[in-house]
């Protein structure tokens, strides 16, 4: 499955400044693993020491917050948009 991942400003040092990058994977976990292959270091920013999503990271697959879905096991259909967003906004 080929998806497009939207990268937040604070992670663009890993993507050469690019705001969007392509990635492969049938689940969010696989997409993050593929991102790490091409942009070394990015997974450690998004995942904690136990390999879970950090608590201040929001990830959306298309319009769905993965915390309402299956977290890292959330399916990422072909052509999906994945957005990684800092959670510390609003209020």
């Amino acid at each position: 499955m080929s998806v497009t991942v939207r990268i937040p400003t604070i992670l663009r040092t890993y993507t050469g400044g690019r705001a969007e990058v392509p990635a492969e994977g049938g689940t969010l976990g696989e997409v993050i693993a593929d991102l790490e292959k091409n942009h070394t270091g990015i997974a450690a920013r998004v995942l904690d020491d136990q390999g879970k999503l950090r608590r201040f990271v929001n990830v959306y697959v298309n319009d769905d917050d993965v915390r309402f879905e299956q977290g890292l096991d959330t399916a990422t259909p072909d052509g999906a948009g994945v957005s990684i967003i800092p959670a510390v906004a609003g209020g």
Partner: protein
Amino acid sequence: MAVQTVATPSDSTVDLGPAAALSCRECGHRVPLGPVFACEECFGPLEIAYDFSAYDTEELRRRIEAGPASIWRYAPLLPVPADVAEKPNLNPGWTKLVKADNLARELGVTGGLYVKDDSGNPTHSFKDRVVAQALEAARAFGFTTLSCSSTGNLAGAVGAAAARAGFRSCVFIPHDLEQGKVVMAAVYGGELVGIEGNYDDVNRFCSELIGDPAGEGWGFVNVNLRPYYAEGSKTLAYEICEQLGWRLPDQIVIPIASGSQLTKIDKGLQELIKLGLVEDRPYKIFGAQAEGCSPVSTAFKAGHDVVRPQKPDTIAKSLAIGNPADGPYVLDVARRTGGAVEDVTDPEIVDAIRLLARTEGIFAETAGGVTVGVTRKLLQAGVLDPAKTTVVLNTGDGLKTLDAVAGTGLSATIRPTLDSFREAGLA
């Protein structure tokens, strides 16, 4: 694919008073002052680190007491330049701390009950406090457009502050907000954009806009300026203590939306203790939510450290944040101080709005109904101690949420005669 320049923080040559740097609340990573809000190491929230080392306690107290009747009396403790009061802004704050004896009798409180009534701010909610900080940061970083995601109150505060300061404003709200809040935001002449979705959808949109060229040069008060913005809530703590005679209250009941206000009030109280401006003794902080959007109280009652997001469904729209950014920190503060987090139903909110209005003559918006309702519930449950000095926050004006009390109206309609008056049982 377009290659963008990665934004880097400005250096710390900006003059934001005692603010020295930004520090991650999670991992402690420090970066220079700049329009950044999330830690590049762990995504944790960045907070202002201050240098208060030069302050003498009594001199600081005198300086504050001689200051203006606004939040700027506390400028030495905020991320603002020393001459902030001379710049065009709304000069919010120094709102009334009302001794609520009638409400206290009704609720059985004997230790002193106070309502910190922030409906007295220029745009009738506490949001003027936080926007005033963000405005100074926006000036310091050279922004000329102010923006935000809002549940309504913030939209008005940003629109008004931008108008006074000569900034452009463009704010984003859920499309189905209360009409009163829409009007009170639109009247200031900035752009007001309804988003088809709830507040969390609006917030997500703003977070993405900030990383896009379309949002370049924009100061989003509660996104890229959030570290500065959030500090404005500390002034509630400062004012409450100064108005109590430089004394900490025993118990404070605070509404929770993102949770930022509650955690910053705690930070403000801690600063006053460290600076020696109040006696170091225990206080308890209580959080209040609506049952229809209660992710933090649900986590508190379940003993969890993680806040699971919810889809909001409540009349308390100013608190309808289903994915609260500071939720985990609210849990920390409530547990550390021996407080609690509780929620009330929509009917209980309406009943509490009426209770505060008929006992104290204060017409609160729904968020105020939430705090008064939770106060009553926690007193009945024996969680709040009626013998202790208790402060309840009313963060906004009831005129903004008239729909909530729409059933309130005429006692009777009569002919203009004394007989009719008597017949109606009104004599």
